[in-house]
């Protein structure tokens, strides 16, 4: 069954919190029983909306993603994410 963007986000955050280092697509894919190619597109999208930040060897969650999880909603409920400059 295809993983949802929310599952990918949660899996990435959990893996990052466990190891305190950037998470690669293979780690996320393994935890979701998916293929790296399947999760890669979602990871890139989450990077584009700044829920994840790409580093040289993987992704780390941003403050935005951590605040989002506190809202008690899922990414599947999100219609749009608008980045506003300070």
């Amino acid at each position, binding site marked *: 069954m*295809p993983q949802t*963007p929310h599952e*990918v986000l949660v899996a990435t955050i959990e893996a990052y919190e466990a190891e305190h280092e950037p998470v690669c697509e293979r780690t996320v894919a393994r935890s979701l029983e998916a293929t790296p190619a399947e999760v890669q*597109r*979602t990871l890139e*999208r*989450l990077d*584009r*909306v*700044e*829920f994840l*930040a790409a580093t040289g060897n993987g992704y780390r969650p*941003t*403050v*935005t993603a951590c*605040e*989002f999880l506190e*809202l008690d*909603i899922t*990414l599947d*409920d*999100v*219609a*749009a*994410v*608008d*980045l*506003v*400059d*300070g």
Partner: protein
Amino acid sequence: MSNEDSDTDRTRLSGPSDERQQVDLRDCEYAIYRCVDCNNVVLTMRDCDGGITCHGETMERVTESTLGVRTPDIRQVLLDAFGLPKAGLDICLCVIGDGPLSPGELAERLDYEEGTIRKYLNELVEFGLLQKSQLNRESGGFVNVYHSIDLEEMREETLVGFYVWAGEAASLIEEANLTKEDYRETDAKDGLNEVFWEQFADERPND
């Protein structure tokens, strides 16, 4: 043709519903009841155990209507009842499998201008179908997340909102019938030189 052209295209939105048809009220998911004593008529979306009563008397289920009705079109209903145009509906119903999109990406997917998407995102927030949460952004600034309200809450809110609109519409019909009655009684002896409908429209404060 881009979606930008469709906002005001009411004719196209009405689609195949122009033809009136009789509805078999015995086989609907809703039910209409009338009071056997007064003119009260109610609509319910659920079976009510024990039926519905009006001043203590069980109401009678209406099984047929002499008037034909046009088949409602969901987009036209949302436009008429809530002022929610097609663009708003497209945004609400757009499900993206790969994850959340920016307004610019959403505009590209749905074939609207980015400004139109931003405008309707905010209108949907004002309307109550979406909520806007503001989160911090690591590079400074903030992130606006537009997300749908709880589905159960949305179901009830939209139904109540529609009933309010339907009640307002029913009041207009009632008022028109009563005004016609008054007008006919008042002017009958002098002859009906005016078209009733024009006078009714002129007297309404919001028209």
